[in-house]
């Protein structure tokens, strides 16, 4: 062991960055929890004006939800490929994940513009405000995720390729990505289906 390692790290055996990410995700629960709670509280109230159910396009949202769900699969496959030290496959799956995420985002932008044209604007009423802030906040997360994935893909192009150690590693981003996906699992049900 080189001298610089004379400090013991990780008595728990969990890599520090990954641990940090888990802590971060735990607090994300509270972020989304607050948003969902607000949404639910107002969903149950009656207030005149245009409602969410007036603008929904469930088939469309179902497809984009499915796309996001599948991006979790490609993500985990990328992770798996990296564990198998297959750089090539890792990059392919990474790019696939980023693309699926981008498609989801495009879908969301389309959906927002559609709603907007139906007169459902951010400040139209409490339903529209809670809707846009909640799903928009999620969209922002997806966007950051796509950026991270592309950055990883870029790093992977360089000679040394990706590793599971150090730096902004794949596992770290993968956790984030899956989390963004599970949030949507909840949102899809709470916002659209119920």
């Amino acid at each position, binding site marked *: 062991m080189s001298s610089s390692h004379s400090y013991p790290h990780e008595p*728990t*055996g*969990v*890599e520090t960055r990954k*641990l940090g990410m*888990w*802590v971060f*995700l*735990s*607090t994300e*629960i*509270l972020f989304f*929890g*607050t948003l*969902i*709670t607000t949404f*639910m*509280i107002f969903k*149950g*109230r009656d207030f005149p004006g245009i409602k969410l159910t007036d603008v929904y396009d*469930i088939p469309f949202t*179902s497809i984009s*939800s*499915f796309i996001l*769900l*599948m991006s*979790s*699969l490609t*993500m*985990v*496959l990328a992770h*798996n490929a990296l*564990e198998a030290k297959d750089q090539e496959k890792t990059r392919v799956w990474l790019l696939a994940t980023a693309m699926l995420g981008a498609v989801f985002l495009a879908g969301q932008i389309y959906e927002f513009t559609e709603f907007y044209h139906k007169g459902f604007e951010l400040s139209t009423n409490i339903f529209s405000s809670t809707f846009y802030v909640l799903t928009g906040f999620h969209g922002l997360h997806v966007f950051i995720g796509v950026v991270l994935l592309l950055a990883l893909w870029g790093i992977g192009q360089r000679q040394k390729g990706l590793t*599971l*150690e150090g730096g902004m590693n794949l596992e770290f981003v*993968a*956790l984030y990505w*899956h*989390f963004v*996906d*599970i949030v949507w*699992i*909840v949102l*899809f*049900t*709470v916002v*659209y*289906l*119920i």
Partner: protein
Amino acid sequence: MSENHIDHPTPKKYVQIAIVLGILTAIEIALYYTEDIVGVFTDPILIILAVGKFIIVVGWFMHLRFENKMVNRFFTGGMILALVLFAIVMIERASANFS
């Protein structure tokens, strides 16, 4: 680094899980369109399905099942805390007297 990486499932397993997730999603959408059939149970079933998908992704794709228990506790703790607190807020707000 951590030795438990070894037990991770195979790609095949992951694809199977994804298929299950897809089927659950299909059931959800079907339920939405057939609300009259299941009636008052629609919403609870939808919620249970969502929770199921949630647990599958967290457990398998995020490997929480294989993770150190410190991490597990932290995440589940945050989850439970959020559920309890926000449930109270929702119930309290639902009982307000609006004029």
